[in-house]
């Protein structure tokens, strides 16, 4: 499988009244064709910011992308997304990269019918005329499982439930058969049974259309059922990346391990104690010269306070940004 997205050393900062927020401090990753990449992190970790930076959706001011590149090997050739003009980006967004956001209430225009909103993207990117767009739009609604699509095409967003609205968003996202769909917490606001429906839909569409999906979430349960590979973010950096099985069975970064131990599990015994991670996440207002997790880490030692650990290659696909080897329980030599 070839790579369709390569991000290197992405740096994003926000210049606010409270000071400079160092939101992303050198993020790198790749995405292969048809792959599902999960991005996991808590609030403030930079997971959403990294995706929004790549596609030019960071409000600027106060945000500024200060470094890095995002090579997109699209169907129209390779380009660095960070260097595209607004017009070129507008072509990419919706056409080659689709989006599904968390809150369908705010991402769908409440005063336009959903039919109009689907047609908008079809007309813009595929050049369909009104009638063609409508026909295709109804097809899409059926594809995502909306009953009576020819009737519902003319409904307004408020006439749909939360789960239905997300389906509409997914229809819009895949309307132009993009290569990548970026889903930013798409099921966080949904009930768990509706979430199951939506995840199921996503998987079916992905199988059928061969789309690569970047799924941003804080829910490690959803990731386990969805992802091929996982990136773990902390303090504006990627601290671990691995294939999904490896991440859950052999986490190598203390933060990942901490997260897994702090999760309640339906399949585990009740007497299992949740091990919380002490302390609070960093506030990103100071540029760090040390590991962002140092204050909360149980394995911290001298070096952690003076250097930022790079991503060490610890397996074929497995990387961990930590000076300590959790598995061997010793400090790395490198």
């Amino acid at each position: 499988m070839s790579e369709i997205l390569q991000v290197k050393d992405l740096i994003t900062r926000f210049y606010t009244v409270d000071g400079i927020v160092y939101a992303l401090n050198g993020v790198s990753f790749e995405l292969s064709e048809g792959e599902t990449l999960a991005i996991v992190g808590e609030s403030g970790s930079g997971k959403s910011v990294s995706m929004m930076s790549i596609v030019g959706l960071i409000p600027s001011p106060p945000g500024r992308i200060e470094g890095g590149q995002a090579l997109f090997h699209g169907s129209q050739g390779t380009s660095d997304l960070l260097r595209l003009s607004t017009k070129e980006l507008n072509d990419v967004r919706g056409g080659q990269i689709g989006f599904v956001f968390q809150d369908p209430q705010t991402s769908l225009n409440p005063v336009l019918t959903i039919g109009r909103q689907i047609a908008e993207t079809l007309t813009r990117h595929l050049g369909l005329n009104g009638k063609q767009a409508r026909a295709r739009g109804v097809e899409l609604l059926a594809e995502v499982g909306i009953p009576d699509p020819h009737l519902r095409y003319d409904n307004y967003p408020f006439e749909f439930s939360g789960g239905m609205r997300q389906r509409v968003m997914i229809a819009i996202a895949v309307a132009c058969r993009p290569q990548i769909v970026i889903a930013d917490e798409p099921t966080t606001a949904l009930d768990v049974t509706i979430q199951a429906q939506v995840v199921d839909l996503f998987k079916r569409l992905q199988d059928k259309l061969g789309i690569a999906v970047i799924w941003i979430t804080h829910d490690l349960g959803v990731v386990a059922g969805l992802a091929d590979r996982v990136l773990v973010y902390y303090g504006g950096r990627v601290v671990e990346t691995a294939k999904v099985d490896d991440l859950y069975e052999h986490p190598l970064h203390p933060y990942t391990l901490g997260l897994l131990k702090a999760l309640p599990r339906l399949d585990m015994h009740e007497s299992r104690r949740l091990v919380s991670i002490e302390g609070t996440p960093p506030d990103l207002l100071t540029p760090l010269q040390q590991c962002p997790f140092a204050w909360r880490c149980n394995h911290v030692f001298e070096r952690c306070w003076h250097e930022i650990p790079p991503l060490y290659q610890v397996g074929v696909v497995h990387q961990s940004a930590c000076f300590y080897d959790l598995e061997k329980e010793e400090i790395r030599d490198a």
Partner: protein
Amino acid sequence: MDKALSIRPDDNLLSKERTLKNQLGYIGGLLWRDRSGVIGMLIFLSVVFAALFAPFITKYDPLAVDFEHSKLPPAWQQGGNFEHLLGTDDLGRDMFSRIIYSARVSLFVSFIGALIASILGVGLGLIAGYVGGRMDAIIMAPVNLVLSLPYLLFVVFIATVLGRSLLNVILIFGITNSPIFARLTRGEVLRIRESAYVESAVSAGARFWRILLIHILPNLIGPLITLATFQVSAMIFYEAGLGFIGLSVPPSVPSWGNMLADGRSYLSSYPWLTTFPGLAIVYTSLGMNLLGDWLRDVFDPKLRRSRR
């Protein structure tokens, strides 16, 4: 750096402690970032200063009539002299000192007027918002009625009926401006009443008065002070308006409005008679508005300063 192995898990807080020094520093920082706030503050202070120290700033009695030196233009124009910096009016009274002393009247009227309006308005708004139901309807009906009347006409009408006196002007402003405070207060009370911390107080067993005075009232102060500042600015204007048509304080009392009235007949011949009081009104109003804008920013983001 040692890992601060505190005995308690979260020892790092989001901001520095709220000592007086830090508070002042924080406010100073806010002022500095928002220069218009500085300007507003300076203007406000300058007017207050002028009002307080009037006798030390100018040697002339604002009421002293001097027909020999009447209608003198400002010092920098032909015919003027530096004895009367801003010239004299038709009765020979020194313009500069009249302007300075008028500040007293304007500030007094607008401050006390705003005070009465706020006390009355907040009281009504609190009851309407918190008790609700029929009380709300009974109180808000006249309030909304007054608010929908053309203000200046309304004030002129009452002033005509009551006559000219300092007390009357203050009372008029106080009563006719209370509806704005009532409406703001009522809106805020309705909003705060539904907030989670009020529900928390109820669940803790708090009674009516406690919730009203300890929970709701302190959270009203921010928007109230902001509104009061804007109302003071408005009242300065209204006093001028009333004075211009001869319904403000008695003519013997120096006020910017009265000065405008005095100079009205000489608009083209001796323009400085109206220009300077006009400028003084604009200057003071502008200052209060800038101050009010800044105050609104001070109170708002502070409350929403929660980090996630």
